């Protein structure tokens, strides 16, 4: 187990190096002069020169790369050209909002998805089953940002029962619509998967044995079937992490949510290169760390998993 964790950690290092290098290449192939692009027509020659030397653009490409890597290792991601704030500082400032959003979205998705999937399986071919699966299929195919806009239109603009966009002072009510928006897709996938796993488990011999023993149907379902149907559900959380972070970019934009995703879009609109670099690298790091945690947690959930 320990050896597995260590190997998994060691394997992450070249991937991080790859991520950083890809981002460097991306920013290095920008056609034209980045300094000019950032400043637009405002820049006088002196400012442009300063930006070029700040970014190291006057150096040959391999020296630029080495400098970039050295700075990254020191945790220095440069300074934003839009706000003059340190990129790393902005990332730390914005991260809690994204974490809060993604965390609650996943909780929402797991609870509603598992509940709907279980009920669908137990009452297969019922009206509930058909409507739940219809909603689930629609939820997988609807664009995240569009779902968010519909929720806003119904609950904030028409019924006026929740505040519109924004973060407020961090009250939970502001969290409601963004969490549902981001959680719909994983909830739909989890519901479909829980249903099919549950149906499969219910056909197993040990369930028949449990029923034959005369156990109450409730006990059979909750104690015997549910636990075993849950394993694949945990797996899907891992596969949905990337989609969740992509979804966060769109959700945060719609709801003016002060997280990393919105920070990235703002930086992209302003062509704020140090900030674009920083947000992209940071998002990839979050994904890698979260993925690692999910991978390692399989062993705790499913004792059959052996790390070799």
């Amino acid at each position, binding site marked *: 187990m320990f050896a597995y964790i260590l190997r998994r950690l060691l394997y992450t290092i070249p*991937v991080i190096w790859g991520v950083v290098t890809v981002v460097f290449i991306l920013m290095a192939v920008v056609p034209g002069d980045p300094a000019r692009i950032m400043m637009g027509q405002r820049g006088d020659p002196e400012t442009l020169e300063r930006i070029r030397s700040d970014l190291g653009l006057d150096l040959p490409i391999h020296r630029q790369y080495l400098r970039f890597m050295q700075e990254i290792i020191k945790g220095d991601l440069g300074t934003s050209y839009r706000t003059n704030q340190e990129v790393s500082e902005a990332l730390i400032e914005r991260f809690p909002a994204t974490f809060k959003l993604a965390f609650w979205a996943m909780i929402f998705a797991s609870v509603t998805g598992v509940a709907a999937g279980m009920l669908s399986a137990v009452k297969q071919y019922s009206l509930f089953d058909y409507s739940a699966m219809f909603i689930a299929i629609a939820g997988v195919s*609807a664009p995240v940002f569009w779902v968010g806009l*519909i929720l806003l239109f119904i609950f904030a603009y028409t019924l006026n029962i929740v505040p519109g966009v924004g973060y407020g002072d961090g009250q939970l009510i502001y969290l409601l619509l963004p969490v549902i928006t981001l959680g719909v897709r994983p909830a739909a996938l989890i519901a479909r998967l829980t249903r099919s796993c549950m149906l499969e488990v219910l056909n197993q011999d040990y369930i028949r044995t449990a029923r034959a023993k005369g156990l109450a149907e409730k006990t059979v379902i909750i104690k015997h079937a549910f636990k075993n149907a849950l394993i694949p559900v945990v797996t899907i959380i891992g596969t949905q992490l990337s989609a969740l972070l992509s979804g966060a970019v769109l959700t945060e934009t719609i709801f003016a949510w002060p997280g990393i995703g919105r920070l990235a879009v703002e930086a992209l609109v302003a062509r704020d290169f140090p900030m674009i670099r920083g947000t992209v690298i940071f998002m990839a790091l979050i994904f890698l760390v979260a993925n690692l945690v999910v991978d390692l947690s399989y062993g705790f959930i499913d004792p059959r998993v052996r790390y070799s």
Partner: protein
Amino acid sequence: MNTEKKISLKSQHGNLWFEAWLRFKRNRLAMLGLIMVFSVILVAISAPYLAPYEPSRQLIWTEGKAAKLASPSSAHWMGTDLYGRDIMSRIIFGSRISLQIGIFATLVSLIVGVPLGALAGYMPGWVDDTISWLINVVFAFPFILFVLAVVAVFKNPSMVVIYLAIGLVTWVQIARVVRGQFISLREREFVEAARALGLPTWRIIFVHILPNAIAPVIVQATLGMGSIIMIEAGLAFLGFGAQPPTPSWGLMISIGQKYLATGHWWWAIFPGLAIMYTVLAFNFLGDGLRDALDVRLKR
């Protein structure tokens, strides 16, 4: 003798596809998906005949203020936008943009993903390690952010840049599937036989193994069409995809959302339904193909 053998093998090969089609036909959702995909293609092809108005014609010049943000009516089934453009006509023409992006970006992802996945799966050791590393690196980026970053470095991204950017991200899904197939096929007898005959590696990969690995690629590419159309919509929504006045669905939602708060819901809602219909179509078709071709894929 040799040709005879070839013919008999070929007809058997044909039978497998025929059997898959029989299985596919029995699956109602799959057939529904096929019909839905065909309907989108048909709409895209016959857009000029189907659309009641020209997609970019601003009716406020001819019909006056009444044509501005008109709610759905018999004259405009899905209403009009701020400039008096007929939303249904724009959605009909928008199908061309979505399909175009879907097809070309999928082509890019196949051109990159199939050979790289095949090489990784066929050649264990440093080739596999390098390609797998690259796949893991690309997978680490949130897809939409990566595409955004690629598109944003260009000042005025053309549609070609958008196809390339999306294809350069989504190839990893294709490559993963192909790699997995090649790993399970490379030790099979027919491959060993081909190696024993001394055939060149490229021939073994492309002529002998690839045809046997094609079914999961078809399934993945079909399911991928849906997610590519969704990525493009997100891109356009954020203002980095198709530019006005292109009737792109994502762009229509992006501009129309500003009028939701004032109750003009139709501008942003109908294009979303179109995206959902199209994505649903490819998902049904992809799921149906997976069942019919008996492919096991991780999603």
